[in-house]
């Protein structure tokens, strides 16, 4: 075999420099052309839009009607968080549709990358929960910049077997309990991290704090720092650590609760007495979208907003869905599941109980404060 021959020649030093270089050139040429092959194979989806979204939200189950009509999914690009997505899109990364959370819409709109959408082109628009359509900052008069499709909670997820004293006495304060030093974690973000501290200290409006409240938040974050195992950046971080017992409690999204519950762990997703946070994410149309793909873009959004997608999001991820009929469907198919996942059968009741995430005033100052706290200052 040629491979053995090459190794033999290399080992015995019989290969000349020139021969060796020839082999290297061949290897280099092969490596360069490999990506070409796979790109050509993908050429078929060039007439489908590109959707820039969160990991896990691109699965086929969440847009079956689109696949039913076109026989394939659109193209996807994945972001880890919205700041990363924003930086990429402003640097010229071209996508047609993106799926941020509502509190980011005003700043993205200001940057001129979003364009209003026409809800009348969506057959499922009338079934979207009305409270989600009127989040401040996501619309401008009758211009709708945001089609809400997903929502859920940010709350404390904890191991009831390891911290039984908190059952029935749930509070954000669990994340400040010195008893569990080094076994707590909070999200490494402003909206799901620093805002938790703001709610914990009892800020009147956590998203627009006074200077005094800012200082109180800083103090509480400093108090919390030595108790933290780490600040998490991906749900997988806390899911594995809670499963192994490395962590006792962490701030989390519904999907982590659903995942750990499925593994049979004794975890609880709390309704903290200070109030859990509610987030809403949905679709935004990019200003520089490809106009030729506009029909497919609306078809994709409509497919995502369908009842069947909603049932999948609820049962598999534990996330709320924009389509209110999905809740009734789940309650009919699997009675009791909604309650287990932390939702009331009356959707509005759940929404009213939480604190809606809103655009944060003075984000740069909050970020600077958070960096300083993390650096131990």
């Amino acid at each position, binding site marked *: 075999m040629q491979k053995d021959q090459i190794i033999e020649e*290399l*080992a015995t*030093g019989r290969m000349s420099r020139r021969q060796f270089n020839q082999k290297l050139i061949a290897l280099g040429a092969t490596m360069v052309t490999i990506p070409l092959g796979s790109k050509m194979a993908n050429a078929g989806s060039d007439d489908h839009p590109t959707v820039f979204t969160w990991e896990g939200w691109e699965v086929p189950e969440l847009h079956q009607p689109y696949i039913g009509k076109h026989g394939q999914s659109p193209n996807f690009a994945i972001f880890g*968080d919205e*700041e*990363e997505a*924003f*930086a990429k899109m402003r640097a010229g990364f071209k996508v047609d549709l993106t799926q941020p959370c509502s509190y980011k819409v005003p*700043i993205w709109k*200001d*940057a001129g990358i979003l364009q209003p959408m026409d809800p009348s082109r969506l057959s499922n628009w009338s079934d979207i929960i009305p409270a989600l359509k009127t989040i401040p900052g996501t619309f401008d008069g009758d211009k709708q910049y945001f089609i809400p499709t997903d929502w859920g909670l940010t709350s404390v997820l904890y191991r009831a077997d390891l911290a039984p004293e908190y059952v029935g006495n749930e509070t954000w304060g669990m994340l400040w309990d010195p008893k569990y030093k*080094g076994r707590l974690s909070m999200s490494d*973000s*402003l909206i799901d991290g620093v805002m938790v501290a703001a709610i914990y200290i009892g800020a009147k409006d956590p998203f627009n704090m006074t200077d005094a409240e800012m200082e109180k938040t800083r103090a509480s974050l400093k108090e919390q*720092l030595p108790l*933290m*195992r*780490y*600040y998490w*950046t991906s749900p997988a971080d806390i899911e594995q*650590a809670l499963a*192994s*017992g*490395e962590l006792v409690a962490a701030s989390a999204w519904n999907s982590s609760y659903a995942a750990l519950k499925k593994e049979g762990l004794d975890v609880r997703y709390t309704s903290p007495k200070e109030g859990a946070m509610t987030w809403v994410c949905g679709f935004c149309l990019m200003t520089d979208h490809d106009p030729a793909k506009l029909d497919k873009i609306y078809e994709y959004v409509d497919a995502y907003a369908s009842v069947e997608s909603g049932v999948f999001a609820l049962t598999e991820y534990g996330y709320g869905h924009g389509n209110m009929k999905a809740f009734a469907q789940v309650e009919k198919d699997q009675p009791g599941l909604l309650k287990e996942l932390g939702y009331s059968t009356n959707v509005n009741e759940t929404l009213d109980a939480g604190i809606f995430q809103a655009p944060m005033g003075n*984000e*740069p100052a909050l*970020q*600077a404060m958070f*960096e*300083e706290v*993390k*650096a*131990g*200052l």
Partner: protein
Amino acid sequence: MKTSSTTAPHHNSGISLARLFQTSEAVRGYTLLSPTLLALLLGLAMPLAVLFTLSFWIQDYLDFIRTFSLKNYIDFFQKPIYGKILIKSIRMSGLVTLATVLLAYPMAYFIAFRIQHNKLIWLILITVPFWTSYLLRVFAWKLMLGYNGVINSGLKTLGFISEPLEFLLYNPAAVMITLAHAWAAFAILPIYVSLEKIDRSLLEAARDLGENAFITFVRVTLPLSLPGVIAASLLVFIPTVGDYVTPSLVGGPSGIMIGNIIQSMFGKALNWPLGAAISVISMLTVALMISLFLWGTQSFRRKVA
């Protein structure tokens, strides 16, 4: 008049360019260099110029105020966080470099002096772990040091501990261990090359003249292999100061480095000019540290040799 004035210089310049090419060695040299030079200019010099310019602007919500300002540099020195983290990063990278070179030297020495046949195979074997992605190697250390990781479960099975040790992961030490391993190949190879080049008769001469093995190493082998040690130190120190993947994966809150701060400025904090200024300052600091290091090794060489 008109025709002569337009054609004559053109004609002349054609001749002079060709002549210049034939007579001037410098022009021929630059022409030969030009593809590389162009790539360097476009890929290295221009981004640096952009970074430098950016550092003198100011972020205003989503836009830049494009007038010259020293605000970012003043911010850097006024707020204690940036300087503190830069110093911490340099200290951590310094320790990583020291550890890497100390571990790499014996390995390179062994291959250069003790292995007689199939040296290439040995070198390939040493670099095999580095054929995997950098990220995988970082994750491998996460598995080693983790709560239910290899070390903890090993100690638990042997009965040395009853509860997993929590201090292994998510601190500066974990970052330094990971970096020292991840960059080892970059230290072994240059040291090996410089050891391999040493004329063996010099070592024999030193022993013939009555030096013992240790003094021979200190006065002959070490000074002669110093270029490799210097190259290895630079190859490890420079990239690790600015690394941000490793600290963000295994560092925890206490293990963050200057790269994490810069990354956050360009991302979450949305303050590119300040990020650029921090980058410029850390580049200058690294350059200063390297100058000090080179000056130090130079004087060591003069003293010993």
